[in-house]
């Protein structure tokens, strides 16, 4: 066994209640392993279902001069070819800004922009036909890099800045300063299930859209707007996604809209499933950024001021770039107090696919910066990087306010980091590693222990709301529905645990149902790690309302005080009588008591005002720390991760096994982003890494044999979250900065007091380049 298994964890963590806090299996686990969990492409197609494939030009930017679709239309199996003219309503699938065309109308903004869609009897026929188009583009010189965009002064959104004090002056007067620039790479989501949607036309004007989406409400709105019908005419349903990671928050809309358009035009059901290469070429990714920074600090490494600029490649439209890049800024401090700071973000427009949400939503880029800064200070001062980190942690009054003005009230950094430092044997391993590096000519080891602090809540205030719908049936079984979507993170399981606990019934009496806009309307996307916090609470309220009615009924029927009615182990205790839960639900029907209720939750204490840069954007922070040990080969730049120790704070865990799964999976995804996953665009702005053959996410052998993951023994979230738990979806991604820091540490061993220049991802090529630069100076 690897060092830490969730079963072990489950044994050591006492469940909070009968159901909540237990390591229940993912609700679909058994179906996953048997292969009978239905994804959209597995749903039995209604008779006559048509299939779509997208068509695009081989150009990156320019004007469409002519579009000859004759050969496409006459290809075998083709039923229709859709262009912008076929759209009855509004040709837009953007989340907010109105700048993402469903089908290109005149202009090409990036390589892969969809110009037309083929509708054919089979998927293969549609794909084949799409290649027969003759498209003439009057090409213009594309803006590919952020530098290209800046040269043209092109932005998708205005820049934004946090400023405290006069950091530039302070830095110039500081005893020590560093000025640096480096690049942070983007990341492809590589959800295993590609984008897919099936639209089924109903009565005139009605449309049912099955979509693999994190945001069914947005799909509903986009389709309604595109068809020119009311929101009430469109229903979007999503039972599960085969992974999403932010890549199906706004990016699912275009394919749903096209499937719905095909269904509208032909009157037949229509399915659009993107081929993997098309998916990778046509959908947005994590923002890559250039980071220019300088910092001033004293002899002990304590910062006096930080000035950082993030130049973010947003691609051809705004998409979610506002929130993403704001969050880069919100997390540019990570766990550290910057007495004075300027944090500036430029949202550069380029002729590349519009970048989008990706687990961490910009936060990871902010933290890659903060950790590079910590490593750089340590190297410059010949200090242990952990000591530099610790001395800069948020602390007592006077050192507890973020650059955006929020007070850090739930700080556990010192305790958590010290515990990991002890349990992972940091100091002893540091000594051993120094010894190794002295005597090893070709291989060098590096060690790093990095903290994270991640803010929980949508920084767009109105998204912090959730709804749920609970039905209890007369046989005592329960259906639960809520606005959150299931992408593998175990949200459905956690919410079902909450509902089962409320009624004191076994988990398998709670039936989880697909997220659907006609059950719970006007929902937020399942994003920002907030799924369990918000939907769990909404479902608890819904169940609680029904439970209150049942209590009242039982108290009346059996002449006891309401306080004497309790629910546990499928039995309702009414005074000294025990009544099966299913008996009470029958009684409720006979006595005309409603067994259905909605529940609604709006996250409290969120006061952020983006205009005034004032207030509190987050309900609380999630914390964690990771220690990474790596070995690099200075002849080739190859690298292995030898050991990982993680201690992570999930408050009181709703489900330790699921939480550990999120931590391990998030960490490995972050590690991939920072090491092997490289997006390569050619000088024409065409993505060259658009398949798993060329884009390399971690595989089983990339995770260290020694991989120790533990939950922080928390006394619970100090905020009143669901069972005092904390969100866990995104934060663990950022634990992986320890890997880059360890690599930096290994390279730095080649030459004292010299900061290695290294961009992410730290591929063998980037590592070797950095090694050679260090050696060249010797």
């Amino acid at each position: 066994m690897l060092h830490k298994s969730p079963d072990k964890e489950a044994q050591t963590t006492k469940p909070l209640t009968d159901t909540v806090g237990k390591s229940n299996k993912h609700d679909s686990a058994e179906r996953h392993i048997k292969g009978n969990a239905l994804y959209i492409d597995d749903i039995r197609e209604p008779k006559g279902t048509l299939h779509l494939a997208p068509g695009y030009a081989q150009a990156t930017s320019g004007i469409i001069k002519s579009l000859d679709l004759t050969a496409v239309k006459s290809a075998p199996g083709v039923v229709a070819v859709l262009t912008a003219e076929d759209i009855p309503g509004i040709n837009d699938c953007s989340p907010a800004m109105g700048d993402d065309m469903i089908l290109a109308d005149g202009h090409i903004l990036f390589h892969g922009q969809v110009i037309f869609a083929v509708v054919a009897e089979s998927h293969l026929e549609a794909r084949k036909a799409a290649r027969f188009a003759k498209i003439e583009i009057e090409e213009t010189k594309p803006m590919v890099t952020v530098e290209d965009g800046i040269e043209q002064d092109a932005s998708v959104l205005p820049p934004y800045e946090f400023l405290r004090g006069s950091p530039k002056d302070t830095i110039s007067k500081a005893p020590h300063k560093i000025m640096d620039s480096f690049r942070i790479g983007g990341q492809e989501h590589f959800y295993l299930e590609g984008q897919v949607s099936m639209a089924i036309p109903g009565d005139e004007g009605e449309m049912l859209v099955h979509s693999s989406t994190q945001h069914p409400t947005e799909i509903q709105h986009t389709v309604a707007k595109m068809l020119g019908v009311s929101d009430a005419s469109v229903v979007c349903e999503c039972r599960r996604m085969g992974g999403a990671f932010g890549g199906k928050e706004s990016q699912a809309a275009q394919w749903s809209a096209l499937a719905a358009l095909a269904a509208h035009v032909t009157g037949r059901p229509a399915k659009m499933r993107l081929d993997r290469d098309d998916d990778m070429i046509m959908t947005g990714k994590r923002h890559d950024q250039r980071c220019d920074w300088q910092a001033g600090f004293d002899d002990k490494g304590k910062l006096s001021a930080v000035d950082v600029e993030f130049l973010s490649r947003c691609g051809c439209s705004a998409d979610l770039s506002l929130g993403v890049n704001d969050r880069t800024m919100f997390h540019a401090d990570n766990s550290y107090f910057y007495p004075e700071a300027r944090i500036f973000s430029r949202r550069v427009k380029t002729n590349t696919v519009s970048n989008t949400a990706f687990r961490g939503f910009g936060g990871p880029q902010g933290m890659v910066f903060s950790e590079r800064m910590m490593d750089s200070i340590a190297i410059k001062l010949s200090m242990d990087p952990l000591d530099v980190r610790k001395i800069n942690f948020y602390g007592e009054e006077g050192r507890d306010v973020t650059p955006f003005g929020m007070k850090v009230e739930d700080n556990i950094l010192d305790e958590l980091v010290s515990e990991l430092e002890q349990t992972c044997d940091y100091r002893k391993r540091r000594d051993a590693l120094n010894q190794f590096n002295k005597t090893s000519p070709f291989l060098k080891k590096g060690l790093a222990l990095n903290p994270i602090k991640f803010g929980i809540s949508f920084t767009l205030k109105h998204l912090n709301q959730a709804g749920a719908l609970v039905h209890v049936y007369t046989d005592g079984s329960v259906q639960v529905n809520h606005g959150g979507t299931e992408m593998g993170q175990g949200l459905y399981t956690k919410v079902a645990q909450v509902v089962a606990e409320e009624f004191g019934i076994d988990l398998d009496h709670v039936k989880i149902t697909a997220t659907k806009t006609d059950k719970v309307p006007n929902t937020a996307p399942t994003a920002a790690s907030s799924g369990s916090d918000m939907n769990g609470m909404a479902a608890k309220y819904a169940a609680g309302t029904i439970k209150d009615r049942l209590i009242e009924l039982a108290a009346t029927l059996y002449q006891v005080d309401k306080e004497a009615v309790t629910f546990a182990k499928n039995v309702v205790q009414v005074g000294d009588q025990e009544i099966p839960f299913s008996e009470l639900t029958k009684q409720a029907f006979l006595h005309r008591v409603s067994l259905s209720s909605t529940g609604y939750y709006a996250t409290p204490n969120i006061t952020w005002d983006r205009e005034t840069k004032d207030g509190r954007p987050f309900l609380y922070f999630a914390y964690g720390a990771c220690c990474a040990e790596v070995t690099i080969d200075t002849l080739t730049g190859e690298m292995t991760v030898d050991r990982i120790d993680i201690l992570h704070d999930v408050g009181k865990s709703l489900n330790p096994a699921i939480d550990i799964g999120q931590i391990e999976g998030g960490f490995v995804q972050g590690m991939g982003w920072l090491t092997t996953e490289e997006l390569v665009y050619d000088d024409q702005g065409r993505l060259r890494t658009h398949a798993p053959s060329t884009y390399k996410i971690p595989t089983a052998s990339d995770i260290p044999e020694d991989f120790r993951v533990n939950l922080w023994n928390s006394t619970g979230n100090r905020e009143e979250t669901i069972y005092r738990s904390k969100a866990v979806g995104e934060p663990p991604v950022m634990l992986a900065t320890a890997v880059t820091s360890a690599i930096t540490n290994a390279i730095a061993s080649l030459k004292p007091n010299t900061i290695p220049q290294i961009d992410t991802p730290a591929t063998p090529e980037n590592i070797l380049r950095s090694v050679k630069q260090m050696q060249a100076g010797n």
Partner: protein
Amino acid sequence: MRQNIKFVRDGKTVELTNVDPNETLLDYLRLTEGSCGTKEGCGEGDCGACTVAVGSIQDGQLEYQAVNSCIQLLGMLDGKEVITVDDLSKGQDGLHPVQDAMLKHHGSQCGFCTPGIVMSLFTLYHTEKAADRNSINNQLAGNLCRCTGYRPIIDAALESCTGSAEDRFSESLEATTALLKKLDDGEDLFVGDEERFFAAPASISSLAQLYETHTDAIIVAGATDVGLWITKQLRDLPKIIHLGRVKCLDLIKDNGDEIIIGASATYAQALDSLTSIDPDVAEVIRRIGSTQVRASGTIGGNIANGSPIGDSPPLLIALDAKLTLQKGNKTREIDLEDFFVDYGKQDRVAGEFVSQVRIPKLAPSQTLRSYKISKRFDQDISAALAAFRFTHDNGIISEARIAYGGMAATPKRATETEKTLVGMDLNNSNDWQKAIAALELDFKPMSDMRASAEYRMDAAKGLLIKALHETSGIPTTNTRVIGIREAV
């Protein structure tokens, strides 16, 4: 001649007469059978979501191998058993042991890669050795999971794959073996007509005759490359000749001082013999594709398709391998390096096919070192691959054969570097500079999405230095982060 395809599904023989030569196994499963447990993740054999188990008789025994169904042509399954995730616990009270372990260890999150992972573990479950971390890493290298970080899956494998299989498939072993033996009828297979067909000749003479008649046909061994022409380039390949049923073409023979590998022998089949040459040979083969790819792909195919980034050619060139080609009943043997004429051009005439490769073993005075450089260690295509065979005595090099992949339009020898190395002292690293510099005369690599030209050259030099140090006696524990020889 037989005109239908036969394979075993769920204990019964399926016969199909109307099979398009380009139809994939995955499409057959999902679209024709409606067995939707098997997923399409990438359509190019790189993610493993579509993994199924294929049973075949190897040396008289029924063996299961994981393959990517998205790039297996349906006709290639002739004579085999196909097992998918939908079949594992069909009609059973409980789950299959690997499913049980996956459930227990929370091995699925989104669940989309899970069917493929379960099937990969199913084939590991049916191997006779208890799994360890290395065998699991190898087994799973071709199964990408984006959610779990693999740890729970590895734990599930460690617990369930203990080397003794007891499931409904081991129970029906004899019946299945009998069914498969019955399907092995030695008949030439030809489905379709003269314009459009899937053919699988049963003998070398039938193959030679058919290919001379249809010189425009595509020869397919494992389809790990040709499969992508169909699924990705969307090419229509009307005439397919499959090598999988040709008797004796998959021979693997150890002649004492050399090993002969037939053109249709898969990497998986050839691995043991090749390992006897040197552990570095085994390591290069281990890092070609994934378990799924190595179960289908062949060394013959890796050579014949002439790719500049195939991993086995530079290794075999350094080993001074000879290639046999056949047309009709005429055969000829050439030096392997001469086969690669230029980018996309090989020394092969119409109707001529690769029949075998002959690989000399190392002499006692020879040392082999080979290295693969890629962004990810497992299942990645090389940025560069280097292979060195040094003949040396008392620390002096008397002969050097060096070949690189990824450094030129073809797999190519470093002839200038080889020359400068002759007479060089292995124990005097100051002496090596001339040889290292000579690599720049031998190669002008290019930049692409895998690596820049600059990196390729730097890494090529680093690998030469590494090979020389290792040949001089430095243990690889001090020189490598992967493929450590002392661990073998």
